[in-house]
């Protein structure tokens, strides 16, 4: 009966043409829409992206605004809170596009939310630049309006493994080393796990994967997965987690008396929040690989960014703010290059953009070959007991020496 209804009546008026008249006029102001997880699980990271977006907008407006064909047009940021909820991120983006008529979108934070939201942007053919979605799956769908400033997570895992490999070669770690891969059940985590397992597979005599388990995002209790890791007695504990899960898991890890010669939580560990939540003893010797670090700050662009940021917030920027700032800046640059807020023109400008950047490598572009995802080297850091987190790899930019195995473990 239902079948019949749907098939017989299976017709619907098709989309009316949405008015596109005057899209090429220079507007009085440029409205950029964005949602961020300002509350909920990712609120800490979301708040830092907000600082990055707002700084970029503020600096642009201090200069009169974006230069569109010779006219300086001020930028307005319309920022909503998606409460770390995928459905809400979709609905709010939809609302920004159809209700508020924004000219372009900046992305939310974390792979899972961007995976959801980028679909809306593509559906509505509106430029979407994010600084918080690193999983390659976001960029592998053939979307043409979605651009990401974070380099792929898989490279993060491989870069960390390269450092570990050097330590093993120096005889500091057992051979073969037992590897536990524990990853959040998102495409972010999958990429990380593939990176680790791919590296271990290519060096099969040196590494043996003994645990390969996933966990749900926003877990409150990780004792089951930790007991698996404990019984496998792993030498390398390679975890990929977002900030809240990292804090919860590391807390349970230590409180159950566990210790590993090498432990990493992917990009987490060097944040000020981690130190506050876990104490210095709780984060010692954690290895992390990030997209940006203030110790890179020797170029003029970098030092200007750090100075402007520090004078406003009184704290040093971390990679979250830097990526938010760069994502927004690249969008502004593209609008200026396009000389228009026309969605297609801005998209084309983003696709061909090459911009001087504060990110490692000094240039930011969104190559079509990787689906609009930027690519540049990672920096590996390690937390040391004196409270510092020097860059320990790659060697040419290292600001300190790494330690392996963790001297705190009684073995």
């Amino acid at each position, binding site marked *: 009966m239902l079948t019949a209804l749907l098939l017989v009546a*299976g017709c619907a008026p098709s989309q009316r043409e*949405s008015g596109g008249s005057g899209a090429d006029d220079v507007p009085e102001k440029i409205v950029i829409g964005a949602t961020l997880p300002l509350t909920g699980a990712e609120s800490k990271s979301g708040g830092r992206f907000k600082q990055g977006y707002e700084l970029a907008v503020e600096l642009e407006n201090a200069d009169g605004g974006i230069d569109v064909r010779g006219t300086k047009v001020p930028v307005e940021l319309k920022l909503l809170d998606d409460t770390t909820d995928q*459905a809400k991120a*979709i609905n*709010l983006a939809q609302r920004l596009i159809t209700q508020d008529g924004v000219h372009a979108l900046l992305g939310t934070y974390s792979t899972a939310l961007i*995976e*959801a939201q980028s679909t809306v942007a593509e*559906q509505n053919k509106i430029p979407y630049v994010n600084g918080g979605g690193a999983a390659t799956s976001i960029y592998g769908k053939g979307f043409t309006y979605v651009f990401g400033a974070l380099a792929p997570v898989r490279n993060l895992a491989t870069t960390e493994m390269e450092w570990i490999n050097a330590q093993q070669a120096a005889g500091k770690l057992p051979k073969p080393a037992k590897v536990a891969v524990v990853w959040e059940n998102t*495409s972010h985590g999958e990429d990380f796990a593939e990176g680790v397992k791919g590296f271990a597979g290519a060096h099969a005599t040196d590494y043996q994967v003994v645990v390969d388990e*996933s966990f749900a995002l926003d877990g409150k209790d990780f004792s089951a997965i930790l007991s698996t890791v404990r019984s496998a007695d792993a030498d390398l504990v390679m975890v990929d987690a977002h900030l809240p899960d990292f804090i919860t898991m590391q807390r349970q890890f230590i409180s159950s008396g566990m210790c590993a010669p090498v432990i990493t939580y992917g990009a987490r560990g060097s944040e000020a929040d981690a130190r506050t939540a876990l104490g210095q003893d709780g984060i010692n010797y954690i290895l992390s690989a990030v997209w940006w670090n203030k110790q890179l700050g020797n170029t003029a662009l970098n030092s200007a960014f750090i100075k402007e940021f520090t004078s406003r917030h009184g704290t040093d920027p971390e990679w979250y703010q830097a990526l938010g700032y760069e994502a927004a800046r690249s969008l502004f640059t593209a609008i200026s290059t396009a000389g228009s807020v026309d969605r297609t023109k801005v998209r084309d400008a983003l696709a061909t953009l090459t911009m001087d950047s504060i990110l490692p490598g000094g240039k930011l572009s969104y190559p079509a070959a990787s689906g609009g995802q930027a690519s540049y080297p990672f920096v590996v850091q390690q937390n040391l007991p004196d409270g510092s987190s020097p860059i320990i790899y790659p060697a040419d930019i290292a600001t300190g020496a790494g330690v392996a195995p963790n001297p705190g473990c009684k073995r």
Partner: protein
Amino acid sequence: MIRAGGFLAALVLLWISPLVLPISEYTHHIVGLTFMFMAAALAWNWLGGFVGQISFGHAAMFGVGGFVAARVMLATGLPFGLAWIVGGLAAGVFALLWGHPTLRLRGPYFSIATIGVGEATRLGATYWSGFTGGSSGLSLPLDGNPTKYELYWYGLYLLAAAVAISWWLRRSRIGLGLLAIKEDVEAAGDLGVNPVLYQDVVLFLSGAMVGVCGGFYASYQAFIDPSDMFSFDRSISLILMAVIGGIGVALGPLWGAVVFVIIQEFLLASYSQFYLGLYGALLVLIILFEPLGLTGLAARLARFSRVARFSRITR
């Protein structure tokens, strides 16, 4: 017959109005989504209202329907309408799978069991990332999928089907049987009603309809993830719509769905932090003062005005 006529007239009116009235694009989209919620709430009511078995786990069928439909679309390129139906059938079968054994529990026992089913399904679905995409979810292809603009009408067909089934369930012999089961299962058995068969039929229909709604939702959002599709809050939203509208009343949940969506949309952007409490307060007030929800309230008002008019005439 008059009611059927009115129903058809309303359908035609709703079918034409977006073409002639100056409705904003956003409102148009939201109304389309509301039709789906109405259909899902009606379907929940077949089990929760007609049989009196309150399910806290209908998100399981919504999710199964949505993900099966999405996978079918991705894998076979089947037209979306058919994919929804495949998803609905899968959801109906899934409902029977857990429901057949649990339906012999009554009252709170059944409700508690459905919470367990819902949560176990959610965990399983999130874990099975090969099928559902895990915590990252699943994006649908953008071409071949209807636009939100077109989905308005498909939502309307969905609603029409749900209303028709509601009437049929209420009016047919099955409807009487269900009432008997709701009153007293053992006595119903003595009357020659087969409670197991009747409840299985209703559960299958309810699960399948909610599953089709899940498929619609997948097409509407063009992205689904297990933590949203299978969430406890989604099961709850169906209960809320039915309770607000009038639990057990054939078309009561329709009004509940409207209230639900209005609250949701009104508070979405700026006051999203208030909606849980508002639902909670509504639930408490309705249970304490008007167990038949808006329908009961309307009946009470109608009676009141009739009495008022009557007393004016006699005076």
